[in-house]
C-alpha cells in the first residue's frame, strides 16, 4: 500500500497483447451490421430487404416484426422503463436501430445494410425538453397505455416549507439557470459483442463490452428464460475493455439482436459498432436543465439552496442508476457547506433523442449536482462582493463535525475541507494571483480564478438502499492461495483501464504479505468470478477492494491457527508482520506466509479444513465521500474570446491511497474529461432532431494539445468505515473540474456584468457575451 507499483496489466497493453471483444474470432462466425434511422421521429411504412438479400454473403435481415414473433422486440431498461430492440412501426430518434443485416463478413454486412430500403413517413419531433410538456406536444410513448403526456417521473427531496421560509426572509438570494449539456462517453473502444449460442448444449457464451458482466448474465436470464436460456446456461465474458466510463453499463439493442440471431441460427454472431454509431446512438450523459438558487446573509453565510431540474432522457429512461434513485445521487448538491435547509425537485421528460443518461465517470448525477452548487456558490460570492475562497472557508463543514448529516440525509463519513482548500491556495499562491488580477483589470485585461471545492459520494452501496433491479450493490472477492504461496484472486468488478490487476494485488499483498507480483487478478468471466455488480461509480475500491481486504483477513486468521500449530505455541503468543507470524519475544521463531500456506495443503492442524481459500461479499456500511479543492486560472483574449487555462491545481482527498501513480493517472484522465464538457463537448441537435456533430470532425474531444498542465496533490482523510480507509478516486476530477473552469471564466468576465455562462464555454460564447455587454 502506498507504493507506485508499475501496473501489471501494462506489459500486455503496451505490447499489443490486450484481448478485446473485436479480437474474438470463432469458427463459422457471422457479422452483424445495423440499419439506422435518418429521422428523429417517423412511421416506418415499409422495409424492403429484397436487394439486401441479393448481396453476396448476406444471410439474413432481421426486423422488429421478426423479433416480435419471439416477444423480443422490446426490452426493459435498468430504470424499469421499456426500450425497443428493433421497432415494429415507429422510430423515436435519429440513428435508432431499424433492422439488422447478418452476413458472412463485416463488409458484406455493410453492403447489405446499404441495400435495405426503408420507407418512412416523417413526423414532427419533440426536441426541446421544455416544449415536451406543452399541451399540444405530440405524446411520444403511445406504446404505453393511457399515456397522455411526455412526463416520466417527478422526484423531490428536502424540506420545502422550511427552505421557502429561509428564502423569503434571506438578506441575499441569487438564482441562475444552467444547462449541463448532453455529452458523449467517448471511449477509445466502441461497444460490441460476440454472441455464441451452442444449440446442442443449449448454452450461450456472450463476449461483450460490459462493465457489469454478472448483472448482464442475470438480465439475459430474466429476458430469455422463457426460451430456455436459464442463468446456468449463460456465460458472460468481458475481456479487456478500452474505456467504459459508464457507457458500457447499459444493455444496447445490438447485444440483444446478436443474441437473438445466434440463438436462431446456431452460429456465433459478432457486432462491433463503428465510431459514428457509438457517438450518435449510445447512451448519452448529463442533459440536466437546472434552476439553482442560494439564500444567505450579506456577510456570506450560506443559509439555504433550492434546485429545480428538468431532465431530458430521450425517448426512454435508460439511465443506469440504482433502482431507488431516479436522479442518482443528485441530492449531494448541498455540497461541502454547513447549512440545513434545502429543497430539490426534478421532472424527467421524453424527447426524440437517444435514450439515457448514463453516469459518465460520475457516481450517478454527482457531476450535475456539483456543478450546480459550485456555480451558485460563486454567484453568491459575486453578489455580496466576497472572495469566493473566503466564502468557502467560512461555510465549510468543520473537520470535527464529521460524520456529518446532510440536509438530504447523507452521512458524510470524513473530510477536512479547510486543509484541502488552504493547500490548493498555497500551491497557486492565491493572494498573489488576486493581486495580479486586480492590476490586469485596471488595464482592461481578462484574467479569472475559479474554485471548486466539492464533495463526492461514491462506492454504491449499502444494501439497505442500493440495488439494481433488486440485486443488492455489494461486491466480492475470492482468494485462492496455491501450495507454493502464490495466489489467484477473482472479483465481481471489471476493470476498463483502472488498474485493478495492480491495486487489488497490492491490497492483498498488504494484508497477507504475499508479494503483489505473485498475485494473479482475474475479472470479467461469470463462470469463474464471484458474483458482483461491476465497476462504475468509483465503487471498485470501496466495495471489491474492501472485500479483498476482508477476505485476506479471514485467511490471516487461518494462517495464525496454522502458525500456532506449527510453532507449538498458543495463537495469542503470535505476532504478525507482513509476510510472517513470529512468537512474541522470540522473533527468530517464525513461520512465513509461504510456509504456512504450504502446511495448509501438506500438514494442516487436525480438524481444520485443508487448503487456503477465502471469499467475501462486502456490503459497505456507508458510502464514501471523497472531496477535492480545485483552482483554475484562465487568461482570456478579449478580442477573440480565446480561453487559455494557465494553471490548474487539483488537491484531492480520496482517503488512504493504494497506488499513488495509479491515482495520479486517474486524476489526469479525469481532469481532461472535466475540461471536455467545460470547454468543448456537447451533443447538438437541430429542431428536426438531426445531430449536428455526429462525428469526431465536429464533436470535439480534447487531446493532449488542448490539455493544460495538471498540477495534482493530496490531503489524506481516511474513511473511518472502510477496511483500509480508502474512498475511491476515479471520478472526482471529472466531477470537480468543470465548475472550477466555468467559475474561472465567469470570474474573468464578471467586471462586465456577466454572472453565468453555460458549459461548454467556447471562445464564441465568450466573445458574444462580451459583445452583448458592450465590452468590445
Amino acid at each position, binding site marked *: 500500500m502506498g507504493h507506485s507499483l508499475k501496473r501489471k496489466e501494462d506489459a500486455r497493453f503496451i505490447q499489443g497483447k490486450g484481448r478485446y471483444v473485436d479480437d474474438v474470432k470463432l469458427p463459422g462466425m457471422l457479422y452483424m451490421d445495423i*440499419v439506422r434511422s435518418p*429521422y428523429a421521429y417517423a412511421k416506418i411504412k415499409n422495409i424492403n430487404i429484397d436487394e439486401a438479400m441479393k448481396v453476396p454473403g448476406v444471410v439474413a435481415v432481421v426486423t422488429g416484426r421478426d423479433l416480435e414473433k419471439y416477444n423480443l422486440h422490446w426490452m426493459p431498461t435498468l430504470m424499469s422503463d421499456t426500450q425497443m430492440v428493433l421497432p415494429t412501426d415507429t422510430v423515436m430518434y435519429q440513428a435508432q436501430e431499424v433492422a439488422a443485416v447478418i452476413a458472412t463478413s463485416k463488409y458484406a454486412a455493410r453492403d447489405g445494410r446499404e441495400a435495405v430500403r426503408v420507407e*418512412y413517413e*416523417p413526423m414532427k419531433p419533440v426536441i426541446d425538453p421544455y416544449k415536451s410538456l406543452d399541451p399540444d406536444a405530440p405524446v411520444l410513448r403511445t406504446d404505453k397505455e393511457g399515456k397522455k403526456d411526455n412526463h416520466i417521473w417527478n422526484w423531490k427531496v428536502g424540506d420545502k416549507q422550511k427552505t421557502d421560509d429561509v428564502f423569503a426572509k434571506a438578506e441575499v438570494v441569487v438564482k441562475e439557470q444552467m444547462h449541463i449539456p448532453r455529452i458523449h462517453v467517448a471511449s477509445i473502444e466502441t461497444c460490441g459483442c460476440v454472441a455464441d449460442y451452442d444449440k446442442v448444449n443449449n448454452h450461450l457464451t456472450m463476449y461483450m463490452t460490459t462493465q457489469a458482466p454478472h448483472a448482464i448474465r442475470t438480465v439475459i436470464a430474466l429476458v430469455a428464460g422463457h426460451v430456455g436460456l436459464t442463468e446456468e446456461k449463460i456465460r458472460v465474458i468481458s475481456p479487456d475493455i478500452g474505456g467504459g466510463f459508464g457507457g458500457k453499463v447499459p444493455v444496447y439493442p445490438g447485444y440483444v439482436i446478436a443474441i437473438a440471431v445466434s440463438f436462431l441460427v446456431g452460429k456465433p454472431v459478432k457486432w462491433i459498432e463503428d465510431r459514428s454509431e457509438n457517438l450518435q446512438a449510445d447512451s448519452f450523459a448529463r442533459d440536466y436543465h437546472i434552476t439553482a438558487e442560494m439564500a444567505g446573509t450579506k456577510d456570506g453565510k450560506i443559509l439555504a439552496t433550492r434546485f429545480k431540474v428538468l431532465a431530458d432522457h430521450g425517448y426512454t429512461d435508460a439511465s443506469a442508476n440504482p433502482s431507488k434513485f431516479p436522479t442518482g445521487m443528485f441530492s449531494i448538491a448541498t455540497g461541502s457547506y454547513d447549512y440545513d435547509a434545502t429543497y430539490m425537485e426534478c421532472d424527467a421528460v421524453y424527447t426524440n433523442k437517444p435514450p439515457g443518461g448514463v453516469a459518465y465517470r460520475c457516481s450517478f448525477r454527482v457531476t450535475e449536482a456539483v456543478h450546480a452548487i459550485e456555480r451558485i456558490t460563486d454567484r453568491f460570492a459575486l453578489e455580496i462582493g466576497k472572495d469566493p475562497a473566503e466564502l468557502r472557508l467560512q461555510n465549510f463543514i468543520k473537520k470535527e463535525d464529521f460524520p456529518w448529516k446532510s440536509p438530504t440525509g447523507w452521512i458524510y463519513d470524513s473530510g477536512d475541507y479547510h486543509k484541502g482548500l488552504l493547500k490548493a491556495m498555497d500551491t497557486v499562491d492565491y493572494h498573489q494571483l488576486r493581486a495580479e488580477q486586480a492590476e490586469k483589470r485596471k488595464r482592461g485585461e481578462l484574467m479569472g480564478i475559479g474554485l471548486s471545492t466539492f464533495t463526492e459520494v461514491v462506492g454504491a452501496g449499502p444494501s439497505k438502499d442500493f440495488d439494481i433491479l433488486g440485486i443488492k450493490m455489494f461486491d466480492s472477492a475470492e482468494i485462492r492461495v496455491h501450495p507454493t504461496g502464490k495466489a489467484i484472486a477473482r472479483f465481481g468488478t471489471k476493470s476498463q483501464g483502472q488498474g485493478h490487476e495492480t491495486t487489488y494485488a497490492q491490497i492483498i499483498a498488504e494484508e497477507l504479505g504475499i508479494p503483489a507480483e505473485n498475485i494473479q487478478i482475474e475479472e470479467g468471466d461469470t463462470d469463474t468470478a464471484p458474483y458482483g455488480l461491476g465497476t462504475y461509480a468509483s465503487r471498485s475500491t470501496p466495495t471489491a477492494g474492501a472485500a479483498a481486504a476482508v477476505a485476506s483477513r479471514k485467511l490471516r486468521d487461518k494462517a495464525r491457527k496454522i502458525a500456532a500449530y506449527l510453532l507449538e505455541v498458543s495463537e495469542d503468543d503470535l505476532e504478525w508482520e507482513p509476510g510472517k507470524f513470529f512468537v512474541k519475544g522470540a522473533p527468530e521463531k517464525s513461520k512465513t506466509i509461504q510456509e504456512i500456506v504450504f502446511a495448509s495443503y501438506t500438514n494442516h492442524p487436525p480438524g481444520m479444513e485443508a487448503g487456503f481459500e477465502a471469499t467475501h461479499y462486502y456490503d459497505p456500511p456507508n458510502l464514501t465521500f471523497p472531496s477535492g479543492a480545485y483552482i483554475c486560472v484562465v487568461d482570456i483574449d478579449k478580442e477573440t474570446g480565446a480561453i487559455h487555462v494557465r494553471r490548474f491545481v487539483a488537491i484531492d482527498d480520496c482517503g488512504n491511497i493504494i497506488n499513488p501513480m495509479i491515482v495520479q493517472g486517474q486524476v489526469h484522465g479525469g481532469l481532461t474529461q472535466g475540461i471536455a464538457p467545460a470547454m468543448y463537448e456537447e451533443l447538438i441537435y437541430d429542431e428536426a432532431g*438531426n445531430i*449536428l456533430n455526429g462525428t469526431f470532425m465536429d464533436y470535439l474531444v480534447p487531446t493532449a494539445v488542448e490539455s493544460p498542465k495538471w498540477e495534482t496533490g493530496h490531503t489524506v482523510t481516511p474513511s473511518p468505515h472502510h477496511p483500509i480507509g480508502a474512498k475511491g478516486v476515479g471520478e472526482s476530477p471529472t466531477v470537480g473540474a468543470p465548475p472550477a473552469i466555468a467559475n474561472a471564466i465567469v470570474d474573468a468576465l464578471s467586471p462586465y456584468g456577466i454572472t453565468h455562462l453555460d458549459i461548454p464555454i467556447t471562445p464564441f460564447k465568450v466573445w458574444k457575451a462580451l459583445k452583448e455587454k458592450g465590452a468590445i
Partner: protein
Amino acid sequence: MTTTITKSFHVDHPVDAVWNNLTNPTQVVTCVPGASLTEQIDNDNYKGEVELKFGPVKAKYDGLITFLERDAATKKMSLKGTGTDSKGKGGADMKMDGQLSEKDGGTDVNVTMEVNVTGMMAQFGSRLINDVSNQVFDQFVNNFKKQLAGEQVDNTLSAGSMVGGMIKGFFGGKK
C-alpha cells in the same frame, strides 16, 4: 437543418419569355444541377430525381414537385419539392418562390429558396449546406441564362467543382 437563400439576377429577355421558361417543368428542371423529371402526374404535380453531393456524402432524392402557384398576371410562382433519399438516408424538402418584373426591356428575377434536409446530409453537411446550396443555385442561374439564350445546357452534377468552387469562393472572398 434549414437554409434560406435569396437571389436576384437580371436577364436580357422579355418577361413573358422568362416566365414561360421558369414555369415550364421540363425546361426549368433541366437547369437544376443533378435533377431530372421522371413522370408527369398532372398539370401541377411531377415526379423527379435530384442528386446531391456534399464532399464525400452523396444522396439521391426521389421526390414530388408541385406547383403551388403560377400567376401569369402578377408573374409570381411558387414551387414545392419533397423527396426522400432512395437509400433511406434521409429526406429533403424545398420551397421556391419566384417573382419576375420587367426592367429595361429585360427581366429582373427574384428567387427565394428554403431548403430543409434531414438525416445523413444534415449531419455531415451541416457546415457545407449553405455554401453548396449557393453553388447549386449559381449553376442553376447560369444554366437558366444559357437556356434562354438558346444554348445547350449541361446539368450533370459536378460535385468536385462545386466544392472546389466553394473553397475558391471562401478564400477568394467571392461567394
